[in-house]
């Protein structure tokens, strides 16, 4: 599904290149649950951003479902997010001026899905996440865990084939974090959604099927969890 070949990212500063990513090559198949780990500043988030097409690599080839992403125009990239990718952020990034239901509805609006189907999908997701009672609340009226649930619901409602999550539990207490990770695992196993998460926590990484460890912009380790 995803194929990275020799991806490099650097910033040139007064002629000196400071590398964030070097020679990153890997392949991620449909249905995998990958955790990217590593110390701060190793380049985990940059890698995830490149995967999510929020940043462009300085060099290298990125194939997403057989298409060369680096050659795409912004408009086409946005088409790709709409249809295939859901994002989940550490800081949730819900839109403060929208209610829970409206936040969840937003990606569907951009996909131009008709009103009746939007309603049924939102109802569906709210029901599945047990949040029907909270649908008219604004984000600042929810706890962190609840906000992240809305964030995930919003990512899922557009029925993506892949979810990219940047430290999804970084701002949460452990009980809530566990709940989120269980949810991810269930989505991966039952719905077959590919999940790529960046995490600091060994424990969270164990929920996945594969762990990529990055240090100083280079992939240090690539191990399968089940193989342990």
């Amino acid at each position, binding site marked *: 599904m995803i194929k990275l070949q020799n991806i490099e990212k650097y910033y040139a500063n007064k002629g000196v290149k400071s590398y964030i990513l070097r020679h990153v090559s890997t392949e991620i198949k449909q249905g995998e649950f990958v955790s990217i780990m590593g110390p701060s500043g190793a380049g985990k988030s940059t890698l995830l*951003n490149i995967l*999510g097409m*929020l*940043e462009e690599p300085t060099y290298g080839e990125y194939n997403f479902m057989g298409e060369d992403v680096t050659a795409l125009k912004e*408009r086409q990239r*946005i088409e790709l*997010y*709409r249809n295939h990718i859901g*994002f989940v*952020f550490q*800081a949730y*990034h*819900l*839109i*403060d*001026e*929208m209610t829970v239901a*409206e936040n969840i*509805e*937003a*990606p569907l*609006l*951009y*996909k131009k899905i008709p009103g009746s189907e939007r309603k049924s999908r939102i109802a569906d997701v709210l029901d599945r996440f047990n949040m029907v009672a909270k649908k008219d609340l604004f984000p600042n009226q929810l706890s962190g865990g609840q906000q992240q649930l809305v964030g995930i619901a*919003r990512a899922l409602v*557009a029925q993506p084939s892949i979810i990219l999550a940047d430290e999804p539990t970084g701002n949460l207490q452990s009980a809530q974090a566990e709940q989120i990770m269980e949810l991810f695992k269930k989505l991966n196993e039952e719905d077959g959604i590919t999940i790529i998460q960046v995490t600091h926590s060994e424990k969270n990484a164990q929920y996945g099927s594969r762990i990529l460890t990055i240090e100083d912009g280079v992939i240090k380790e690539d191990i399968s969890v089940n193989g342990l």
Partner: protein
Amino acid sequence: MFKLNLKIAWRNLWKNKAYSVFNIFGLAVGLAGFIIILLYINREQGFDKWNPALNRTYMVAADFTQNGAENKGSKIKALFAKTIEAEFPSVEAISIGWLNGNANLRTETNGKVIKEKLSSVSMDDKFFAVYPLTAINGRMQDVFRDKNAIAISKTAALKMFGEENPINKVLIQNRGLNEKEQELVVKAVWDDKKQPSYFGFDVFYAADFSIYGGEFLSRTFSTMLTFRDGVDAESELSKMNDAYTIALAKFVANNSDVNFKPSKQQALAILKDKEGITSFKLIYEPVSDLNLGTFYSTQAKRTTINILLALASFLVIISCINYTNLSLVLAQKRAKEVGVKKVLGAQKINLLKQFFAETALQCIIAYLFALIIAELLVPKVNNLLDTQLSLFSSSNISLVLGQALLILLAVIAMAGAYPAFVLAGFRPVKVLKGNFNTAKHIGSLRKVLVVCQFTIAIALVISFMVMLAQLEFMRNKDLGLNKSQLMTLDIGNFAKRNLSPAAFQSIKDRLLAISGVDDLTRATEEPINDSGFNNDLSFAGKKLNVESRFVDVNYLKVIGGKVVEGRDFSTDLIATDSVQSILLNETAFAKLGLTSVNQQIGIDHGDDIKQFNVIGKVKDIQAYGFEHEVVPTVYLVADYQFHWRRNIILRLKPENIASTIEEIKKTWMEIEPGRDPIYSFADETFQKMNKAYETSNKVIFYFGSLTLIISLFGLIGFAAYSAEIRTREVALRRILGATTANLLNMLNKDFLWLVIIANIFADVLAYVYMNKWFAGFAYRIPMPFEMFFTANLSIIVITILTVSWQSLRAVNSNPASVLKAE
């Protein structure tokens, strides 16, 4: 999606209530100003538009120099119309008569008297072919059927007759003390609201030329003509110029022989020879242009309109700048929303639409408020500009609202475009990483906008102050006479106008018997006005055209004029003074090169030159306001027969003025019954002369205050937000030991620079504009640079106070709680 965007827009407005109020209110005030000015402009340009032949209709008059004096009357001899009718088939119709008369009319029904002074037009029977007013009741042409017939405007008919049908009703015309009253019968009514006219007349009646008999052709009249459709008016008018010059030459040469065909050169030679006319040309003006500025008026409305339009545009532009500025300030808060939406799949166009929808929502709210504000302000504006504007009842309301709507769209585009593009252009990665600071990206533009705003506002403030200083100078300058409590009373009865001082004594005694009257004298005109007479003086081979004031002996004493050299006229020497003594003013002394009194001066009387002795030098009296230099003037006490002393000038005691005036009126009604006394006061006349300046000063004041207020609103919002986003920095500095003064200093610094730069620009701008303004004055103050300094300093102080006030919350907040929240 649109509905959702609207909802978000509303929630955003609500969340940022304070900013929204500033934004919307500022915009509303700007738009209100603009709407009012649109009303004014539409009204001023709306005259005569109902006339399908308007662009083919011209007023014609003559401009010529006769015996060295330019004659700029707005009329032309009847000979012109006769010539045109005979020689120019390109003219559809030409009409002559009087366009600006007055009629004192009254109705008496069942003992109830309604009295009105209405403006009247009386023209010949071709008038409606030139100026096709249409009757809504009766027939306009019927006015020419009967000497006593009259047409009346709908407004005047309402005043005189109420709701009753005015046709065949009687109006009684009072024609002054020297003619009998006349009964007029209404034969037609036209709708002056649907057919607004530049000439603004309420009644029309047929002109009666029979009184002129054989002199008719040499009399001058207002003359209006309409060309046939498709005629090149300009070339026809220049042909008319030549044809009339020749006709006039034949006329003055008294040679009507058809074979006498002088060329234009010969014609001009005849005019010079017979009449002393050295230059002659026709003045023609399209009727459509008259209201905005005519050949005969110095203060054209077009200038007023241009100035008002410029000021209103400033106001709208400044409001837009404010809007843009505050939106950019708020952009920081919106950055996350943009980032998230982009990640969720929003294209740039979706976001642009959303932000434009938000601007539109605010602008529409502002527009509604603007309508309310405009409606509230209209009476005040009417008062100020001496107009009758009305917003919701005016006949062109749809035009005004339509124009204002266009402005609104322009405002939405102007104010909304930049923030929309900035917001929609945010890069999601940067925004979502968290520590994104938009202030750095848009800071410089915001600064430019603030500088622009303040430059305009400060320039207006300085202009206002400089104008005020000049006005103050004009109010207090020694005019050469004492203008307070100086009353001029018009003598109505012709028989009482040419009385000798001895014959006038009994009237004088009756007026002097009133305890509030100090003294009185007579003159041909009031002291602050054109005297109506000119003479050529000659001295030592020099000739000088001077204004002549024919007065009574004690004239200068009563008006408070000063004789700086020699002596005033004297009652004891009246026998010689009245035939051979004159006074000259300082300007005449200087222009003639006269060094001392008691010199012989010749006065040109057409056929011979009569010698007079200059007995005194009078301090210059400023009879023509401040735009014009004092004209050389001669004072004479001679000749009551041809220079009628038609004005009594009274010096009143300052106590109980009102009751004195009442007594004078009562006494005068006994002397001249049958007419309300006509009087005026010198200081009021003077005030009227300066009224245009006072008005423009007030207009500048209002617009200047508004721009300043709106700019300050912008500053408040800007400062509040700056302080808010720097709360953390302020808290940290506080912990590191900064005092309140340090912090305020830090927060003020950025704004202060902007305002100082704006001050410099504004000084230059105001200097250039004020220099131009001063060029219109013959008597002016030197450029008051202290005003520039005062304005600059006050604006800077206001800025510091505003920014400090907005910053205090950040400065005074508890550092511990601020840092903990982070």
